[in-house]
C-alpha cells in the first residue's frame, strides 16, 4: 500500500480522536486534513521508525493542542457543583468511607492491551462519560497535558480539574470492569 492509500485508511480513526477532543466536527475535519496533508507534502520526514499511524497520531496531537490553546478562552466548561460531586462519590462508597463493592484485581491486563477489542471497549467507555469529563480526561491522558496547563486553558480551578479527572477515572474503571474484565476473569 502506498503512503496515500495508507493515510486514507487512517482518516476515520484520526477523525474520531479529533472529534472526541474538539467536540466540533468541522474543526476536527480541519486538523485531520492538515495532518494528512502535512505528511503527504513531506513524506520523507516519515522515516519508518514507528508505524505511520503512530507518526500521524503524533502530528495530530500537536495540531489538536494548538487548536485547544487558540480556543482556550472560548471554551466554557461548567465547573462541577458540589452536589453533583458528592452524588457521584456517594454511589461508590458506603457511609464509613469503604468501597460499597470491593474492586477486584484485573487479571492479565497486559493481554487486554494487545487486543483491538479492548480498545474498542475503552473507546465505548470514554464515549459514555459526560462530555466535559471525557474532554478533560483525554487532555490529560491522551494529549498528556499537565494538570496546571489544562486548568489554565479551560479557566477552572485546579481543585475542580482534579475532581473531574477523579470522576472520569472512577467511571472508566467501573465501565472497564463491567464490560471487559468481569467477563475476562
Amino acid at each position, binding site marked *: 500500500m502506498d503512503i496515500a492509500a495508507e493515510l486514507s485508511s487512517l482518516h476515520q480513526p484520526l477523525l474520531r480522536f479529533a472529534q472526541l477532543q474538539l467536540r466540533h466536527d468541522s474543526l476536527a475535519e480541519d486538523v485531520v486534513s492538515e495532518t494528512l496533508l502535512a505528511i503527504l507534502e513531506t513524506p520523507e520526514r516519515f522515516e519508518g521508525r514507528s508505524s505511520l499511524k*503512530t507518526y500521524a497520531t503524533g502530528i495530530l496531537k500537536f495540531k489538536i493542542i494548538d487548536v485547544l490553546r487558540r480556543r482556550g478562552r472560548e471554551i466554557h466548561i461548567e465547573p462541577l457543583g458540589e452536589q453533583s460531586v458528592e452524588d457521584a462519590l456517594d454511589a461508590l*462508597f458506603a457511609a464509613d468511607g*469503604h*468501597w460499597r463493592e470491593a474492586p*477486584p*484485581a484485573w487479571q492479565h491486563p497486559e493481554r487486554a492491551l494487545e487486543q483491538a477489542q479492548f480498545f474498542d471497549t475503552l473507546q465505548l467507555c470514554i464515549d459514555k462519560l459526560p462530555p466535559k469529563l471525557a474532554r478533560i480526561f483525554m487532555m490529560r*491522558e491522551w494529549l498528556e497535558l499537565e494538570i496546571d496547563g489544562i486548568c489554565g486553558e479551560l479557566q477552572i480551578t485546579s481543585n475542580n480539574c482534579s475532581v473531574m*479527572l477523579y470522576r472520569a477515572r472512577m467511571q472508566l474503571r467501573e465501565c472497564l470492569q463491567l464490560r471487559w474484565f468481569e467477563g475476562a476473569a
Partner: protein
Amino acid sequence: MSDPAEDDHIDCRAASHLLSAAQDAPLPPDDERRLLAHLTACSMCRNVQGQLGVLRDALRKLGRGD
C-alpha cells in the same frame, strides 16, 4: 497526646482521591505517607491503584496510535 499513626488513618474514599491525584502530580509528603500506610493494609485500594495504572497505560498506547 494524639497517636501519629491514628492521625495518618484515611479511608478508601480519601485513598482513591489520593491515588488519582498521584497520577497528576507528586503528592505532598504527608499525603503520600497516609496513602502508603493505607495501601499496605487495603488490598481493594491496591487493586484500584493497579486499575488506574492499566487505564493510563491503555490511554498512552492509544495516544501513540499503536
